[in-house]
């Protein structure tokens, strides 16, 4: 079957399952688990379809029996007051409706075990791209140990093409409490647990931006600990890597802002590669302007929003761990001008 028919088939199924509800069909915003675009999500999808089919069949059968009972055996007005035959049970019937569910259960166990093995025990190829994800309240740190890159909130990965498969292996850690990495179209979720290393893998088949969320309640701003996975065609990914490995831009026009940044406590929390700022509590800002959002999805990354964020992060992401630095308007203009150079 051609890929296009498969895709349309999946879309039709998704729409059917979503009962024709009206929603914005901006494909890179809607993240249905029934539109998998990565191998592990696809394996899960197929197991899910089987489970849905089995449950739907059981549902229809039992509901028909229920409605039948209600209609056929209701007490009718003209009925006499006699009691119906008092049946106590039937061992054969009991046996039948014990054995049949057990058979269904056996099928489910086999499918489940197979899918678990396919996803969880999939041997990671040696050329898999390795990324370490560190969950923090309330943002994501991404480290590419083999490439020497540290970035935040957006996970950039190469697309996997049919001729040349490219998997990304994620090592999941946490710096504080339990978080969970969930990009529905790429894979099921896996938790990030302190003092424990978890692993998962993704294999995006299509370039684009995949939205996700932290999926384990982790405190005040769990809701805005949003996730973006951006899959690039291989050459584009190589370009991204190269630009990320460059140290921070040194624009002389922004020297005033730069001076403020380095003399206030910004450097206690933030790192900028190639400078003396080596704070690790907050996100690495070396290539801040290469990101689509601020505050891990709390606001779009525009100059106005950037200034507003630095002015008072609490107004955009109440309860987040970056304090209001009480900067003056002039300091804000200068610092924003500096940050805008960090492309």
């Amino acid at each position, binding site marked *: 079957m051609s890929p296009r028919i498969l895709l349309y088939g999946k879309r039709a199924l998704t729409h059917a399952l979503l009962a024709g509800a009206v929603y*914005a069909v901006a494909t890179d915003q809607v993240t249905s688990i029934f539109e998998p675009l990565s191998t592990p999500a696809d394996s899960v999808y197929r197991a899910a379809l089987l489970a849905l089919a089995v449950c739907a069949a059981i549902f229809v059968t039992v509901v028909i029996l229920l409605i039948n009972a209600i209609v056929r055996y209701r007490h009718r007005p003209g009925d006499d007051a006699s009691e119906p035959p008092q049946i106590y049970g039937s061992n054969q019937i009991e046996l039948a409706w014990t054995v049949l569910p057990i058979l269904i259960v056996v099928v489910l166990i086999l499918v489940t075990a197979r899918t678990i093995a396919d996803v969880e025990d999939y041997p990671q190829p040696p050329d898999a791209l390795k990324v370490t994800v560190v969950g923090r309240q309330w943002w994501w740190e991404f480290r590419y140990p083999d490439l020497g890159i540290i970035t935040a909130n957006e996970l950039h990965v190469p697309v996997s093409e049919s001729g040349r498969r490219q998997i990304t292996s994620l090592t999941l850690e946490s710096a504080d409490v339990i978080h969970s990495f969930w990009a529905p179209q790429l894979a099921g979720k896996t*938790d990030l647990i302190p*003092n*424990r290393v978890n692993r998962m893998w993704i294999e995006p088949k299509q370039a684009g931006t995949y939205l996700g969320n932290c999926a384990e309640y982790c405190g005040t701003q769990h809701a805005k600990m949003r996730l973006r996975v951006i899959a690039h065609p291989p050459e584009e990914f190589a370009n991204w890597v190269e630009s990320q490995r460059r140290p921070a831009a040194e624009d002389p026009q922004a020297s005033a802002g730069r001076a403020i940044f380095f003399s206030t406590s910004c450097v206690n929390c933030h790192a900028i590669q190639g400078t003396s700022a080596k704070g690790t509590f907050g996100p690495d800002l070396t290539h801040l302007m290469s990101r689509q959002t601020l505050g891990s999805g709390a606001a779009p990354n525009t100059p106005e929003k950037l200034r507003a964020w630095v002015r008072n992060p609490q107004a955009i992401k109440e309860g987040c761990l970056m304090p209001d630095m009480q900067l003056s308007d002039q300091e804000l203009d200068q610092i924003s001008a500096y940050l805008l150079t960090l492309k």
Partner: protein
Amino acid sequence: MAAREIALTPRIGRLPAVAIRLHDLVVTTDHKKLGLMYIGAGLVFFVIAGSLASVMRLQLAAPNNGAVSPQVFNRLFTMHGTTMVFLVGMPIIAGMMNYLVPLMIGARDMAFPRLNAFGFWMFFFGGLLLYLSYLAAPGITGAGSAPDVGWFAYSPLTARAFSRGHSTDYWTLSLLLSGVGSIVSAINVIATAVSLRCKGMTMMRLPLFVWLSIVTSFMILLALSPLSAAQVMLLLDRFLGARFFDTQAGGSAVLWQHFFWIFGHPEVYILIIPAFACLSEIVPVFSRKPIFGYPIMVAAAVMIAFISLGVWAHHMFTIGMTSMGNIFFATSTFLVAVPTGIKIFNWLATMYGGKLRFEPPMLFCIGFLFQFLIAGLTGVMLGVAPFDWQLHDSYFVVAHFHYTLVGGFLFGIFAGIYYWYPKAVGRMLDRRLGIWHFWLFAIGFHLTFDPQHFAGFLGMPRRIYTYEEGRGWEVYNMISSVGVIAQVAGIMCFVVNLVRSYWKGEPAGEDPWDAWTLEWATTSPPPEYNFETLPAVRSSRPLWDLKHPEDPDWKYE
């Protein structure tokens, strides 16, 4: 109550009647009064927790909404969940078991009446302590209010470092208190059902309600202590610097999850089995047939209890267990569905060939059957571990457990209340208002929880105070929030019905439903001593034998 019973409590001086009544409730050890107090308190907490949820739904009705701050929202869902499970679910089942078990076995009271009272007050003060947190948790430092760590309080979010102030301590202490109440109640129910049965009532002649109460109580004995243990460990961590869940010291955050869910999964069966018990009494009476397969129903309940002790890590499929671990718990989860399904089939078979009467108790039973079927099936879906890797911690799970707890548990309890209210009060609940309650609440329930399944499919995580536009979640959240209106309307019908019928309901007589178990063989309400003379029985339906001397049950035993 007072007008119809012999005044065994002496009048205390010349105090007003209200004071005397209150004093009576404070000192009573009568299982009927305590049972009603449990249920009454549970219903009050239900309205409170429902209000908390209504605020949540208001906040979530639209994206980027600003009705409440994130901090307030996080307290709302924590208090809603904690209240519903521990201060609504547990007391209501304790109340029903304490009220009905002695009557159904032909006894005068529970085995340990004073212990019964102790249990009630432990629950009650535990509940008060939880809500005291709103006022008292800030303490000297001003940090903290009501608990905001979620009803299952995962570590290390509950560690001192991440949960400042005393809000988490209020959560822990109040549940330790009310947990003692639950355990004590369970011991009492088992001792009563085993040791105080009237003559002739062998175990296999017990009403299914009593059997299932025994099973529930046994599960409470095994499940509540692990929660208490984990909570003591949490207190030791927070107050004495112990390292149970301190990941910096090599402790395991996952260990809390194991301990919590070893309690938490049996807990949900503890809640639902009494609803099964209500169904097992009500469906036969309104089908005019005995329960289909009584021994199998007992065996199925025991199997559910047994297997449910081994499924707990299906709440933990995403923590990175080995594939063997995941397969084991998926398997046990599927297995527990088998006896549960058998029960549904047996209730259906009881209806088949019967003469169904759709009074409010039966309406709620039918709603239960439909909704619990769906809930069980979404549970099976969640048991497919890879499917759960997508659905865990999403609104699909929220939909699933509200289907089991509201669509299942609550509907079962409503059925029970409509069925036994006439016995407890001596007056019928209004039938028409009951039907309004049923339909309004059912429509509201479906409007609220059906769309949440789809929000989950579209990737909406749970416990988020807001969401952005464009993810496709808006319409489902809007519909879900609108459903609250109908639910509230239904509950108002219920409350009005309960209150009005107390004074103005039609007198019920001893046996308004033409039923078959011993509670219907005494007055409504029963006298304090329950039965004039203690009965003796020869079958599981002694009143059927009485009414049908030509065709008694004991001929077929």
